[in-house]
């Protein structure tokens, strides 16, 4: 066997084995909201007009974690329905309901879209 090829395969294998494997992202509410905001790994729900600070932590299905060296970003597929702003700290984001509708929020890790979380913006609550 070609020694170079064997070395490349070994290196790739080691690199893959040491990387986290994306499973889901936990979203934790980081600010008080005057009305209920629902956050789960599969669903975001908030009324139009509300802004919610969330902390996004991608979870790995293997033993390797998404440590602080992994760049995480949230991105709305329809910023006219729900917009996402960067928050004051790393992995903090502000979700803002703009108008009633549905979209999804992409979880971007190291510039790759890991998944898109369904998002619903409800009518404003009075």
């Amino acid at each position, binding site marked *: 066997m070609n020694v170079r090829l064997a070395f490349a395969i070994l290196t790739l294998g080691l690199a893959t084995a040491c990387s986290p494997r994306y499973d889901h992202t936990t979203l934790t509410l980081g600010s008080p909201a005057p009305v209920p905001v629902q956050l789960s790994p599969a669903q975001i729900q908030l009324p*139009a007009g*509300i*802004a919610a600070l969330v902390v996004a932590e991608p979870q790995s299905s293997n033993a390797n974690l998404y440590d602080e060296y992994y760049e995480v970003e949230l991105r709305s597929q329809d910023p006219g329905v729900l917009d996402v702003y*960067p*928050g*004051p700290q790393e992995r903090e984001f502000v979700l803002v309901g703009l108008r009633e509708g549905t979209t999804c929020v992409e979880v971007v890790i190291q510039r790759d879209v890991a998944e898109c979380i369904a998002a619903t913006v409800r009518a*404003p609550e009075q």
Partner: protein
Amino acid sequence: MTLLTGPAISNRRWGPALLTAAAVLLACGDIGSKPSDTQPGELGNGDFIYRCLQTIGGDAACLEGTEAQFPDAIAAGGVFEMEYRSDPDSDLQEGMLAVRPSSAELVTRTGDRFTAHAPGYAALLALTGDSTVADIKHIHIVAPAQLDIVESLTLPIDTVYIQQGEERTIHVLPRDVEGNWLAGSLDYAWVSGDPTLLRLNSAANQGRVQIEGLAEGETTIAVSLGELSQQIPVIVEPATDPTTGSQTDSDSESDSDSETDSSTDTDTDANTDTDTDTDTDTDTDTDTDTDTGLVGGAA
């Protein structure tokens, strides 16, 4: 005021013009500081500053004679200003940050002014130069359900007593269905029931109006906001004689007591002043009226 000193004021042509311009500016409130109150942002990185428009008195949060208050709720249709000052100890950009409304369906911004459009909770975002959200403040927008004519936040009036020649300022307070006052400058319409008895001496579209008693009699003053309206009676009384302190009745008839007096009262004072009172009635009225003009009554 340095504006009016020096040659300008002595110039017969420009002096009156400058005085007029200054009076207009003062009347419009376009100079001077705006009342404000602060509340910390929900992320704890600084303070939001609520400011009433320079037309002071048009906003219940800044009623004349009271401290400005950061409102719990803002009237739908209300206009206001909001600024944000970051905490010097925070890691974020220092100083004043831009404030942007979250949803244009609920709040819009034009220049420094925010307009609350529809009922609901609306977030205002304090943004740094790179559009990072430094802080958040939710405001509650509520449709006004009633109007109260008031002298202050805590003193509704059910009848205005004013003397001939006297000027007085009254306010309107929008309230929600639970009676809580609502902030924001709104476009009101004030109307005197009889302009020959009661004149409106200031812009009649603000949250406050200056009224002047012209002639003795009874009339009304009404204020409206869209489909909401409120009207209260106004009693214009004879002017008080500045030398004696007694009122100078302009008619020769003996007045009947304007309060709930049904006895044979020959009182010449509509407010039962004790100095000239020959009242022989047997009612239990213990008024010690000091002629403050406005008589309040809980709404």
